[in-house]
């Protein structure tokens, strides 16, 4: 029976090897920089913890997250799946945080939802709202993921008259793997691994004829 390799670089670098819901090994690095340095070390670590265990699926967190680090994890997942001839799938990182919060928490509902917020830098946040878990244990997302200024998010919640419970847990690759396993049960695990930037690149279209003389 093959195992699932889960990778997420939407915040720090977190990698886990999971089989049938059982965590074989995990490697978590909080540093929100240095993904390119860390990711392969973390993968090698979890594989070394379980010699003789083959990887037959790779799942990666697609963010949302600020650009650079997110790409490293997705690139690593893509290539590992090719090298190991393993299936590749992607999940939304915010959904995995929601899963951590919602397991064993029955107080959450559509009128009392869970709010997951992560740092998007530039004085903005990524957010999504959840009303609970479905019968397969997959978080039910009722809004987001989107990028927004914190004040605008607050205003929006007041507008729709919702006081959500705010998630406090951080992303882990174990949560990514558990989410993927739940989505597999629910037959909704996606092969889409495109990065969720939710923002356009900062670039100004070429300006012609800039004056150079007095």
């Amino acid at each position, binding site marked *: 029976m*093959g195992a699932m390799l889960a990778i997420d670089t939407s915040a720090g670098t977190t990698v886990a090897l999971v089989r049938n819901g059982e965590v074989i090994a995990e490697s978590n690095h909080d540093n929100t920089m240095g993904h*390119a340095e860390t990711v392969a070390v973390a993968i*090698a670590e979890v594989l070394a913890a379980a010699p003789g265990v083959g990887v037959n699926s790779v799942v990666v967190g697609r963010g949302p997250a600020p650009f650079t680090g997110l790409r490293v994890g997705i*690139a690593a997942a*893509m290539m590992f799946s090719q*090298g190991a001839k393993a299936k590749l799938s992607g999940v939304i990182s915010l959904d995995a945080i929601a899963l951590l919060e919602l397991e064993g928490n029955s107080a959450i509902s559509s009128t009392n939802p869970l709010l997951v917020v992560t740092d998007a830098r530039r004085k903005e946040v990524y957010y999504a709202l959840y009303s609970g878990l479905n019968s397969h244990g997959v978080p039910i997302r009722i809004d987001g993921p989107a990028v927004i200024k914190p004040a605008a998010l607050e205003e929006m919640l007041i507008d729709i008259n919702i006081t959500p419970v705010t998630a406090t847990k951080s992303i882990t690759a174990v949560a990514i793997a558990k989410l993927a396993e739940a989505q597999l049960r629910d037959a909704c695990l996606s092969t889409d691994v495109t990065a969720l930037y939710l923002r356009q690149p900062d670039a100004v279209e*070429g300006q012609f004829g800039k004056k150079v003389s007095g």
Partner: protein
Amino acid sequence: MSKPWAIRLASESDLDAIMQIEHECFANDAWSSDSMFDELTGAEKYYIVAYQDDALIGYAGLNKLPTVHQSEIQTIAVLPSSRGNGLGRDLMDQLLQEAVRCDCREVFLEVRADNPVAQQLYRSLGFEQIDVRKRYYQPDDVDAIVMRATLTSAKAEPLVLGIESSCDETGVGIVRGTTLLANVISSSMDQHARFGGVVPEVAARAHLEALLPTLNEALATAKVSLDEIDAVAVANGPGLAGALMVGVGAAKSLAVSLGKPIYAVNHLVGHVGVDILERGELETPTIALLVSGGHTSLLLVRNLLDDVELLGETIDDAAGEAFDKVARVLGLKYPGGPEIDNAAADGDPNAIRFPRGLMLPKDMEKNRYNFSFSGLKTAVARHVEVLNTKGELVPIADVAASFREAVVDVLVSKAVNACVDHNVPRLLLGGGVIANRRLREVAQQRCDENGIELRIPALSLCTDNGAMIAAIGAQLIAAGRQPSGLTFGADSTMPVTTVQTL
């Protein structure tokens, strides 16, 4: 799914499990338990076992004769239920690596004439038939085919996959030693056109999207599978940090998934080393002029892997950048190089005497091999502005030709100076700007005048590409260099003296 197994050294305690497999695989001519015990414990023997979920599924053994630099494959067995997944190849790889470690140059084996699958595996590993032993296998009465592999060639000709992502080109190249097998490049140039220059974030996003299609096209072109790759190489600098990180993360993960070594190499040294793919070797010493949208560097290469010296580089814009900026001034499209080349075709290169940066006698003392193009760009912009203010028509062909002449003059003059000063009769060109016709023309002319041999690699090897990175990786392996670890990162300002990051 690959490698659901792991491999380790065999020990005496594996004897019973090995004998079970021995009897299952070799029903009529299995070794005795005593013979197998002697094999497992012999001084010059190297036995390994493969296991999955704590159960043995295969084994293989090597008999080493280091005094004569030879070794023999003693046996290899894989349970029928575990065949067809590459375990046999994996076991053979390990035996051959051990043979290399103990400095064996030839490896021999015997294989049943009625086992074409095994023969095919051995051929793909470099074994050739050298003899037949008639009716060797008894009681089945089957001939043995004797095969031999020469290891020096395997080591000197590693199959290396190189990944390049330092700017706006995603490149995957595959080489075998010094032979080019594939060079696939996916460029995001079109996406940058409306911005008039490379936007780092746009480039990095494009790398991620291009990665898998580029990899798969390269493998298809080279007609190899990832399992056959001996090593992965990646450019980890200099270049755009965010772009480099995509390649670095990808390459390291690929290497880990394949269980193969990785080599982190310098992008600029790749541009120099690419000549190896066309000529089989790099003649040294050589002066190298690398000109692209991101670099304008003049190098003295005494030894590709150990002694690359930066003589000079641009102190402001890269030459390619100057082409892009002047193209904008003239209302031409991005990228500026080919646009200006075309516009200049009917122009007079001597119509306007634009300034040559850092070419004055005082500059030639301090900045003899350095370049500056920002003053030239401003001079062109001012020239155009003056004409516009007067309401006169801008002679685009003449301006383009005169600007191009100024850039080419400076580039070639300084490169030829470097050759003459250092008594090096060779000049190698590299980088995307080498596509410029006038640059190649003037370089040839001045090199001929000065008795300098000019090398211009094919354009597909001049622009950023993965093949040049793979070529350097293969050179490092052939030179017996140790692989890079897994902790290296991207270094956007990597000096050219760092050929490999360990």
